[in-house]
């Protein structure tokens, strides 16, 4: 990753911005994914440990979301075409998840009385759960030819 920093030392020139999938803005994307992975895991663990019987479906969904975020974080951070495919797959699952759960929670709120991260398209989190997979897929598409 250091190698992508070329001899160009100026920090205002666009040329100094590293271009790798795991560099530059990619590191910010990975950071946001990591925050969601950690917090989703903690939240799902807490829900399942303390109140699983109240809403097993919602809390299993929380756990599933947590796993998806973990896989996406790791895959985004690892270099290589194989990890890029894993990241694409995980982020597609994430996008489908937020769209399906978001739509269901809007049109059939009775089915989702217990909120998850994807309820209402992630409204409780500033719609970041909805924006994140879209930004992630755009990022992966722009870096699709990298080894």
């Amino acid at each position, binding site marked *: *990753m*250091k190698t992508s*920093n070329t001899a160009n030392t100026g*920090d*205002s020139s666009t040329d*100094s*911005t*590293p271009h790798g999938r795991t*560099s*530059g*803005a990619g*590191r*910010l994307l*990975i*950071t*946001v994914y*990591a*925050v*969601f992975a*950690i*917090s*989703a895991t*903690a*939240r*799902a663990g*807490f*829900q399942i440990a*303390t*109140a699983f019987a*109240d809403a097993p479906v919602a809390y299993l969904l*929380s756990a599933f*979301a*947590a796993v998806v975020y973990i896989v996406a974080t790791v895959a985004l951070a690892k270099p290589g075409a194989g990890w890029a495919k894993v990241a694409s797959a995980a982020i597609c699952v994430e996008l489908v998840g937020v769209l399906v759960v978001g739509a269901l929670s809007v049109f059939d709120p009775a089915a989702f009385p*217990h*909120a*998850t*991260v994807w*309820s209402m398209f992630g409204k*409780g*989190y500033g719609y970041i759960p909805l924006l994140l997979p879209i930004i992630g897929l755009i990022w992966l598409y722009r870096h699709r030819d990298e080894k």
Partner: protein
Amino acid sequence: MTLDGWIIAGMVVGIASTVVCLVAAIMKKKPNDVTLLSLAAVELFIVVYAIASGVRLLGAESLAGEAWEFWGYMFTAAMLPVAGFYWAMMERTHWSNYVMSAVGITVVVMLARMAQIWYGMATPVSALQPGIGL
């Protein structure tokens, strides 16, 4: 959620750190003393808050919620500036400041959740709180 002096102080430090790092990132600065010290200030606040919370809990005060959940948040919040620093320093570009700007605001959200655990929530069942645990 009850706002006490600790939470207000934590929010000021966390938001200030986020703003400082964001401004530096938008100006395309690499991480410098100012942005790194703002991250250190967040870490210092958490350490002080953790020690003070321990003293308060050993004394007369008690948590409305679960102790392990409270200390889980405390531990994670304490790790965030360290992880953010490490992740940002592996590649020093102006993007590192964006990465570090995410730390302060995340800690603020976690402090808000810790205040809920400390004082209890308006709604009785905290497990029904929407979301992913921030």
